[in-house]
């Protein structure tokens, strides 16, 4: 369907891409949805009119409703369970009109709560006094402070950065080696994608390398949309070179000359820091034409997102860069064959790329010694503000989850469950933490999902029914709307729960919600609609007693 559009977008892609111009247009007024703006963009890019408006009205930060908003309050899961946002809203109400306060979903300040964005800067955990100072013309304190701890020794992803010269030694060596050698190392390493699905990296890279075509792309998925996750944010802001090195290796391996990092707008610092690191590498002669005389040409650039969770899904992300509505596409074709602008593309998560340095320095077999047989290498977790020492924790795959909790000093508050892996990850009752190790298989076997491994705590004081409603509502808000089960099922689910919460005479029919979740799970096109039933089923199973008043007692037979 998007064949022609991709081609058109490609034709214009050399200079400034349509999506970037949409985002730019919105920076002036808060929206790119004004008919004249949309039309001008459409004309310039040779797209049809309907396409451009359709795309623009999709994004939180481009659509019409965004016009005139001055401050954006985080409504992500971690800030929700932190219980900070009502108070924050009230406090902001003293400096802003109601219509000037908008929402934003997760700024990666989950370790502190109370997160909001103002004039392109993120803040969290601000006292009333600090807020007052900030809005009366002060600069405020936007620094992001959290623990970075490695349980794994020696640390890999969180190891101190030794400077460009030293860090890129394995890359320089690689340029003299041959690609089949790297293919073997990647295979031996057993490295699997860290974005959630755990797909073996060597398959993807080899697939793209084997795809025909002179033009190929490397795309880094830096849309880290999972509320509660700030792993990619940590890497981009504190270890940006690790991501860039991974992309450069991918480019060399597959024969791509352009790498694009799609970074969410909620992470302004990440964009700034990655841009600086790119400039640094260019200055060091590690980017550009004929890098270090090897004949390898490679350039990197960042593209800023515009507020849409589904842009983390790979096909939606590619459509977004192309300036189309970021709707999920049916696969095949896979991006390795037809990706960005329909060219072969390697698309990986930030953390996945960051692992490449370790594969090069330890060798594939050495890397595979870290972790379990099926889940190799190091993994980062991000812990939210309910932990005594919230922050980024590096562990070897296979490490008991309880060790991570212990390392973080346990919980500050009474917590009944943790949701690991974002809104589509499982809800793990605290009693089950001891049964899990940090790897794909352990979580899967126990009926949960490791996902990207952001951790959100659900305190005892937080009603599970409200959390379920939050999950349904999140899905309804963020669904791309392309497929019926997700678009309609999530809305229906949210309505059912809202009704049960507000009307004590109403109970949700167990069969009905069971069928709703089964349909979403079985028939959705992507893992948003297909994935959200998992945590809700976990909650229904493990918190049956707490939820009983909201559900019809006797499960009906159909």
């Amino acid at each position: 369907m998007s064949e022609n559009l991709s081609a058109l977008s490609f034709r214009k892609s050399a200079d400034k891409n349509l999506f970037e111009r949409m985002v730019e247009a919105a920076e002036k007024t808060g929206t790119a949805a004004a008919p004249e703006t949309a039309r001008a963009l459409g004309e310039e890019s040779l797209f049809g009119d309907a396409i451009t408006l359709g795309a623009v009205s999709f994004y939180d930060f481009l659509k019409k409703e965004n016009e005139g908003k001055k401050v954006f309050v985080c409504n992500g899961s971690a800030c929700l369970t932190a219980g900070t946002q009502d108070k924050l809203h009230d406090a902001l109400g003293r400096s802003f009109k109601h219509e000037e306060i908008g929402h934003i979903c997760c700024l990666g300040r989950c370790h502190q709560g109370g997160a909001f964005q103002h004039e392109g800067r993120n803040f969290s955990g601000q006292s009333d006094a600090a807020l007052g100072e900030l809005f009366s013309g002060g600069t405020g304190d936007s620094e992001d402070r959290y623990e970075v701890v490695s349980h794994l020794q020696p640390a890999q992803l969180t190891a101190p950065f030794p400077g460009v010269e030293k860090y890129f030694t394995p890359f320089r060596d690689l340029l003299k080696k041959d690609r089949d050698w790297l293919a073997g190392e990647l295979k031996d390493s057993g490295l699997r994608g860290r974005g959630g699905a755990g797909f073996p990296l060597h398959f993807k890279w080899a697939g793209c390398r084997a795809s025909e075509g002179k033009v190929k792309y490397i795309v880094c998925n830096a849309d880290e949309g999972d509320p509660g996750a700030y792993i990619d944010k940590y890497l981009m802001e504190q270890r940006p070179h690790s991501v860039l090195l991974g992309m450069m290796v991918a480019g060399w391996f597959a024969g791509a000359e352009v790498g694009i990092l799609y970074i969410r707008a909620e992470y302004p610092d990440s964009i700034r820091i990655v841009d600086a690191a790119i400039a640094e590498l260019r200055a060091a002669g590690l980017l550009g034409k004929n890098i270090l005389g090897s004949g390898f040409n490679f350039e990197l650039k960042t593209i800023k997102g515009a507020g849409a969770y589904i842009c983390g899904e790979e096909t939606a992300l590619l459509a977004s860069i192309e300036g189309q509505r970021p709707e999920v596409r049916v696969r095949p074709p896979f991006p390795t064959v037809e990706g960005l602008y329909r060219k072969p593309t390697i698309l990986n998560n930030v953390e996945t790329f960051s692992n490449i340095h370790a594969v090069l320095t330890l060798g594939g077999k050495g890397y595979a010694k870290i972790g379990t047989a099926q889940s190799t290498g190091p993994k980062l977790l991000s812990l939210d503000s309910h932990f005594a020492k919230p922050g980024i924790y590096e562990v070897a795959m296979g490490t008991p989850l309880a060790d991570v909790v212990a390392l973080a000093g346990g919980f500050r508050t009474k917590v009944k469950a943790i949701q690991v892996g974002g809104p589509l990850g499982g809800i793990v009752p605290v009693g089950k933490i001891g049964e899990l190790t940090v790897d794909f298989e352990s979580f899967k076997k126990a009926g949960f999902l490791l996902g990207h491994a952001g951790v959100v705590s659900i305190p005892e004081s937080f009603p599970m029914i409200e959390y379920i409603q939050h999950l349904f509502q999140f899905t309804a808000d963020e669904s791309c709307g392309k497929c019926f089960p997700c678009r309609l099922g999530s809305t229906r689910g949210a309505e059912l729960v809202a009704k049960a919460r507000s009307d004590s005479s109403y109970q949700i029919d167990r069969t009905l919600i069971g069928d709703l979740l089964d349909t979403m799970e079985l028939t959705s096109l992507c893992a948003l609609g297909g994935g959200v039933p998992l945590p809700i089923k976990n909650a229904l199973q493990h918190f049956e007693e707490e939820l009983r008043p909201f559900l019809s007692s006797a499960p009906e037979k159909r």
Partner: protein
Amino acid sequence: MSTETAAPAVPMVNVQIDGVWLQFPKGTRVIEACGQAQKFIPRYCYHPKLSSPGNCRMCMVEMGMPKMTPDRKPVLGADGKPEIAWIPRPQISCAQDVAEGMGIRTGSPMVEEARKGVLEFLLINHPLDCPICDQAGECRLQEFSVEFGQGESRFLDEKVKKPKNVELGPRITLDAERCILCTRCIRFMKEVANDDVLGIVERGSFNSIACHPDRILDNNYSLNTVDICPVGALTSNDFRFKMRVWFLKETKTIDVNCGTGANIIIGSRENTIYRITPRENNDVNGVWLPDSHRLNFKYVADERRLTKPTVKGQPVDWRTATAIAAEILKAHTAEQLWLVASGRQTNEELFLTSRLIDALEIEKQHDILPRTGEADGLLIAADRNPNTTGAKLIGLCTSKPGSRLKKLVEGVRSGAIKTVITLGEDLTKCGLTADDLKKLDAIIALDILPNQTTPHATVLLPASAWVEKRGSMINVKGRLQRLNRAVAAPGEAHDDWEILRDLIAAVSGSNGLAVIEDVFKAMAADHSEFAGLSLSKIGDLGLPVVTEKTPEPEPAAAN
């Protein structure tokens, strides 16, 4: 000369559908393969002529691929056929092609549950106003919910309200509440009509179909979106609420607005036409039809229709009218006569016209009136006569239709031509003026509506419109196709071929043609292109009869 060229081998693949192994050409969509195996798969978003977005999730089947041994050989079962490893989740069948050894289950419990679940979600947002919905009777939602669902949704109380009457364009209204966002309309406008005015705006459950704010859906193909909308969310302003579809009689015929000869269905009731919709013919129009062609039928029911034969303006009976016409013709020498035939006549009529020409011995004093416009690059041909190919074949015009009309004008002006027969054409469009017409001894005109010529007609013979008669035409690509009668001609109007038959008989004696089939037979005897055929053998989809490309007719002025 017959060097056997082997047909290009289309590789076939073996596919198991509901336990039965069948063969399909490589490249067949799974959903189509199931259909060919008589297992209909419900679908909303899939349309065979458009891209497959896979968004409605209705076409779920169970799918599997052959089990492989470690050395990549298929594991064979007791029956010697490959064993299948089934994918644990249902898969959509609209976006994948069949593959060797693939297994498909179209009705397993998992599949049924999945479809039931999807349908129930859909019904939620649907207003269930079937009694007042135009689509009722051809609604896929109604149909599938009975066949594949539980017939109702358990979520009934919480419908999202959306606008009911959105004017998308001059001919199309959207009921956003009924729309299930299958995107067929969007894809049609983009992929077929090449006019990208529709799109989805907003996100998730707010998604809705919209035109760009500055644009309207006024493309000449816009009404096709109504045909393909599976649930009646798009309605034709022309047809809306006028008639329930199940009351309509459907007549398969062809369009006559241009030389394409698009295949159509006429929906009529009690002699009134309510709508015209396209009929699938992949050799002609696919499944599409331009709006201009669809809506051009009102004139058939015009109250000014000619309903009685007249002589010098006075109503007479048919026998009298025919006799007087014959007398006039016989009273003139051949040199004093001219005949204007029409590219809108059927082959049968043209053939009888050629017989009349023979009877009158006016071998070169005839032509047709060419009509040309601009081809739209889609379905509208530059030739706006539907049967120029037939007229050329049967010899009513030269290879340059209209090139002889100049002679008609000269002859009338010089006084050499005294009487003109016109079979459905307005002579003032052939280069003659009203004054020229006044100079003539007589005009014998056959037509359905008054025009600039009819007031001058000595004998005026009321004929039938294309929806009122049977016959055949040959389109610009040389395809012989069939017209069928949807409604009866008004008053005493006669079928054109009968008028011609009677006129020939009156001029030269009986010709033994009793039914139209006889005309076809006689025509087949004279013209080898029709040999071995009959109206019934032409079939609903027609047949190619003229292979070499007939040159596009030149405008008359060019000669």
